């Protein structure tokens, strides 16, 4: 009887250990590409075919817990080049920022030690990251008419924001009209930048000019 009891306990413990070891770990079964997600949001009242020209900020804002500085690493440059490439593929004309572009585009790297990014907060502090004077409107604020959910961001994210400069004077504010967010492993590699930006544009077929 004693031997059977110990055999039973051994069997139960062994079985429990064996079964728990059989569980599939979801994260260990993802390739680097599969870890990445691409999120886009837009102002649904905007007709993107009404815009013709665009300009991209010449450096990237590194946003960390509502603080920021401008940088231009090889990866940052690759993202800027890719954004220009895919905007031009959609028919938009690249111009200098002093040539009154219809759309201004900012590329940012976002980090957070708290792990939480609320995009209402992100847009509220946007004037601290990107001086509106860069786009020629020194006393205007920014306004995001849409919002992402609250996201946990600790490992970083790339954000591409499109700003409505064409209507800024009339609105007395610089409105966000489209945002793309890239998250996951390997996103800060220059070699991955083109495919990451392509993914954002691929899922935004409405991004095209009228001509």
């Amino acid at each position, binding site marked *: 009887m004693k031997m059977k009891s110990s055999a039973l306990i051994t069997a139960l413990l062994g079985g429990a250990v064996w079964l728990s070891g059989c569980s599939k770990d*979801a994260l260990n079964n993802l390739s680097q590409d*599969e870890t990445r997600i691409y999120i886009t949001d837009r102002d649904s009242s905007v007709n993107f075919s009404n815009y013709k020209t665009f300009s991209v900020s010449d450096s990237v804002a590194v946003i960390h817990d509502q603080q920021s500085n401008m940088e231009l690493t090889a990866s940052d440059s690759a993202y800027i080049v890719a954004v220009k490439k895919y905007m031009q593929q959609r028919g938009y004309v690249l111009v200098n920022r002093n040539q009154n572009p219809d759309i201004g585009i900012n590329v940012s790297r976002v980090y957070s030690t708290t792990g939480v990014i609320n995009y209402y907060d992100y847009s509220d502090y946007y004037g601290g990251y990107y001086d509106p004077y860069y786009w020629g409107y020194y006393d205007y604020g920014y306004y995001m008419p849409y919002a992402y959910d609250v996201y946990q961001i600790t490992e970083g994210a790339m954000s591409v924001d499109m700003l409505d400069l064409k209507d800024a004077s009339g609105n007395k504010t610089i409105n966000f009209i489209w945002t793309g967010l890239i998250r996951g*492993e390997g996103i800060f590699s220059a070699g991955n930048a083109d495919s990451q930006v392509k993914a954002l544009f691929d899922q935004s077929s409405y991004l095209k000019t009228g001509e």
Partner: protein
Amino acid sequence: MKRKLKIIIATLVLGAVSATGRAQKGDVKFNLDYNYSMPMGNFKNNIISNASPRGGTGEIMYSLSNKVAIGGLAGYQDYYQKYPRALYKTGPNETTSAVLTNSIQSIPVMAKVNYMPLGSSGAPVQPYLSGAAGFTFIGFKQYLGEFGSSDNAVSFAAKAGAGVFIPFGKLSAAGVSVGADYNYVPYNKNGFGSLNSLNVHAGVYFPLR
């Protein structure tokens, strides 16, 4: 992993070899089964369509008579499915491209009754019908890419099944069990509805006294 498996098999064989005599009123029997689970209905259509080969159940049954035994069971089943990259509407105008992974761990704890219609006939091979009810602890993790959310819940659970006990020898009280059962597990989080499944299982049983 292989070493663990050898320990378990050795333990079970030890118990089986030491068992003698046929089950009678007052006998206590331990049953350890490997379980292969196939999601059904909403579970299959909306969460995980892949069958799970990662599961097992242990149960202790007390014989009230030659035909009826009651007892309890505990188990574990791991379900997993990774869906190819696709676009998901995650807000009014928000679109997310991601590889979606669903992962569910189910731990049922139930009271069970077995009915063996040929129990008093002395037939060595005993078919049985079974019913069980209790609770299932559910761990549900969902990932978009590597970004996950998790939810733990306890749900009512019930199952009905049938199978057969095959003794190792004519006079042995230990043997092999093979069967199938249908698991009913309501699960209303996120509107999923249920985690019902059809399971086939096979294992060994041996008397504890």
